[in-house]
């Protein structure tokens, strides 16, 4: 997790520290239990393959949430994630590194809040972007 984030130090074009996730099948099962979302493609290999998938796949919501974690790790206790949008463009497989990344695209104030807009995405080990999107965070004074 990052130290204290200072709004004045944020620059358009700067990179958000990359968060690397390598999701184990056990984590996928834990996610199913925690969210009570039990779609079998996330833990039943035979079912996933019968659905035309290469094997079990990580829930899109889980990897999208990892983008949220990337942002809150960057923010520390210095702000909040206001908006997070993601289009799911490819499968996220367990036991592979997934790289959660972002860059700052804008800084502005609105209704007294210090806001930062970012492009965010997830890349797999082959460099394919499996999730693309954007986010807006607020940074405390």
């Amino acid at each position: 997790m990052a130290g204290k984030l200072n709004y004045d130090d944020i620059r358009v074009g700067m990179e958000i520290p990359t968060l690397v996730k390598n999701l184990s099948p056990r984590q996928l099962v834990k996610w199913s239990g925690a969210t009570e979302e039990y779609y079998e493609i996330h833990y039943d290999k035979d079912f996933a393959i019968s659905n035309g998938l290469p094997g079990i796949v990580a829930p899109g919501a889980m990897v999208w949430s990892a983008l949220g974690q990337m942002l809150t790790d960057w923010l520390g206790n210095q702000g909040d994630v206001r908006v997070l949008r993601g289009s799911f463009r490819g499968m996220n497989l367990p036991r592979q590194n997934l790289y959660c990344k972002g860059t700052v695209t804008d800084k502005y104030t609105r209704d007294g809040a210090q806001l930062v807009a970012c492009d965010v995405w997830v890349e797999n080990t082959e460099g394919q972007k499996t999730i693309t999107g954007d986010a807006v965070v607020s940074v405390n004074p």
Partner: protein
Amino acid sequence: MSGKSLITPEMECMVGMEFGPDIYDIEKGMVQKYVAALEDLNPRWLRETPPTYVMSACHLVPMEEWLMSLRHLPNMLNGGMEMENFLPVKPGDVITVTGKLLELVERTGKTIERMVVAVFENSFFNQRGELVARGRMTFIKY
């Protein structure tokens, strides 16, 4: 696109319909299970929920049941999620979720030849009736 539409008249009638409500008690233990699954050890989540929690954990069950009832489209993938947070959510809060089917569109693709894309907009309210978050979910049925 050749052949009969994958969107039946019965499905078309559901556009604009409201689903829910479903009600969730935000429990500290469940939030801890969520962050343990994600391996997000930020101590902040002992006091409040991560920004993606309500979208991920507070399901609109009637919406999911309707999607799974489409027998001619037995498979489903998540096509995307969008969320805007307005207020923090904390353990002890009671969250009411409602949703609306915004659109149904038939599409063709490279790996999935024909599919139906369904977009829902869900709203999350706390026990004081305050809107804490709103989000959109895109489902691909094929």
